[in-house]
């Protein structure tokens, strides 16, 4: 049986609403690209939706890349995102596996502890984290930010991966144990490869969140050389109020969002399944 909306008038109106919202989402992105190719004269003289004049100022991109050191911010963001995602995944996958497969004294409490910690607003930890990293001499370092970000995504990873490990069949592990595999061998050679889909889902969600993170980065990094992309965007936007280099600012926005758009296009389904798994608290 075909289900759906029958009233043609309602159908048209609802479809129009969907189209309008698509435009509301896509237009600001298209606008960012168009404005990244303009100079200040065009910003002041023409309407914001006017197309950029030829020749297109692709030089705005190389300008922020070189003059505003976006090359190093890009590398900072890349290293920090990769490092904290890997560390966070390692720490959460190991605990999640044990919580999903072994019952031991305190296992229930340990699980609840991670779940409950997700209720605590992370801003609360902001001030002590600053002083903790300061005393460890990790302010303004890649490593310091990696540790904090890895810790901030841990509970989410434990939560999603416990559910994932529980959904895997037990037979393979059991036969591995009978074949004489050690606990570690079973985990690394059997379970980790099997749980790849779950690990990838958690990793991608963490990559997006960490790449985009602003508050912790702003507090823990104050050496301009060590900025991540979002931190630099925040600084840049404040500077541009008197320096007015709008074209380059839009180019900077694009440099920041293109990597996440690529990740999104490649891993759409994974992201959707990760969100759904993570929300069933």
């Amino acid at each position, binding site marked *: 049986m075909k289900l759906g909306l029958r009233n043609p008038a309602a159908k048209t109106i609802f479809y129009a609403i969907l189209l309008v919202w698509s435009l509301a989402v896509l237009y600001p992105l298209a606008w960012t690209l168009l404005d990244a190719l303009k100079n200040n004269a065009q910003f002041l003289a023409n309407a914001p939706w006017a197309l950029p004049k030829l020749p297109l100022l692709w030089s705005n991109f190389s300008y922020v890349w070189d003059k505003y050191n976006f090359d190093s911010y890009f590398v900072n963001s890349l290293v920090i995102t990769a490092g904290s995602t890997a560390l966070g995944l390692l720490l959460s996958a190991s605990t999640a596996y044990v919580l999903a497969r072994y019952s031991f004294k305190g296992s229930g409490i340990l699980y609840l502890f991670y779940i409950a910690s997700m209720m605590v*607003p992370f801003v609360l930890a902001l001030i*002590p984290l600053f002083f903790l990293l300061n005393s460890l001499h990790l302010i303004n370092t890649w490593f310091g930010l990696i540790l904090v970000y*890895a810790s*901030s995504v841990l509970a989410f990873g434990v939560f999603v991966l416990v559910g994932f490990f529980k959904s895997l069949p037990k037979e393979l592990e059991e036969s591995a144990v009978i074949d004489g595999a050690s606990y*570690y061998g079973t985990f690394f050679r059997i379970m980790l490869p099997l749980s790849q889909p779950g690990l990838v889902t958690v990793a991608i969600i963490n990559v997006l969140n960490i790449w985009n993170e602003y508050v912790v980065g702003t507090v823990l990094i104050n050496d301009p050389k060590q900025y991540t992309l979002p931190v630099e965007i925040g600084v840049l936007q404040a500077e541009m109020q008197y320096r007015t280099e709008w074209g380059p600012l839009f180019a900077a926005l694009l440099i920041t969002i293109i990597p996440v758009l690529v990740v999104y296009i490649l891993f759409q389904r994974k992201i959707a399944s990760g969100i759904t798994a993570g929300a069933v*608290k």
Partner: protein
Amino acid sequence: MKTSGTAKWQRSLFIASFTIPTLAFFCVFTIYPVIKALYYSLFDWSGMSDHMDFIGLQNFKDMLRDPIVWQALGNDYFLVAGKIVGIMLLATFFAVALTRFGFRMSGFFRSIYFIPNVISVVVIGVLWNFIYNPQIGFLNAFLSLFTKEPVAITWLGFTSHTIWMLLPPSIWAGIGFYMILLIAAIQNVPDSLYEAAELEGANQWHQFCHITLPLVWEQMKVSIINIMMTTLNGSFVIVWIMTEGGPDNTTQVMGSYLYQMAFRQYHFGFGAAIGVLILVTSLITTVALQRLLHRETIEMS
């Protein structure tokens, strides 16, 4: 199987090696700072020196007498309420439209609508600053199409109600995530229920009220509570990028005020106390919303 002493010991060692490093790490970089924040909130401390004055609950007493804290609290709850209404209405509509209405290209719309959720809030804030920009902004230029004189409204500079301007970007940025959640929930509802309703001649609105809404209510509750928590915890970023809490502190939220008091004015004790306020308000509001939104759950057989 017989478990010998060594086997048992090996098992325990394995469990310990897989849980203790994670737990220790998590305690150092998340739990310890949270507890330390509760501790700092009892001190008058500039952060510059080791000198800390224990002042008990004085920071909290000062907080109650600080009009900006009340303003921030009001703004936070304004954003919570506005976002819950705006996001839930639109996300629910989109989720239903993309699953139940039989539209073509539903998958395409779904992909598009999620895009704002993968973009950094900082970038979204900067983009919307340009939409609101009085000289070269999109909104004024658009309104000028319909007026004789060019419109030159400073959208983020009103002496009151500027907080309203932060609502559209927050809603715009939030919809996709909750739409995906609700789509997954709706897809879990058995088709047979809708088919039976269809046979009885129930229209889409009735189907929504009597099938979809009761069966996805749990997900809606989770979404509403999640919007509240992320707003109290994270509305700071969009405020900081778009208005820095101004003009004249009228758009300050608890998070931005915490940042300003601690890292701009070096009242770290007072800042930590605001953090405690954020924790307390979000816990109380969670409990209140749980009560308020409680309905008999309907089990799907």
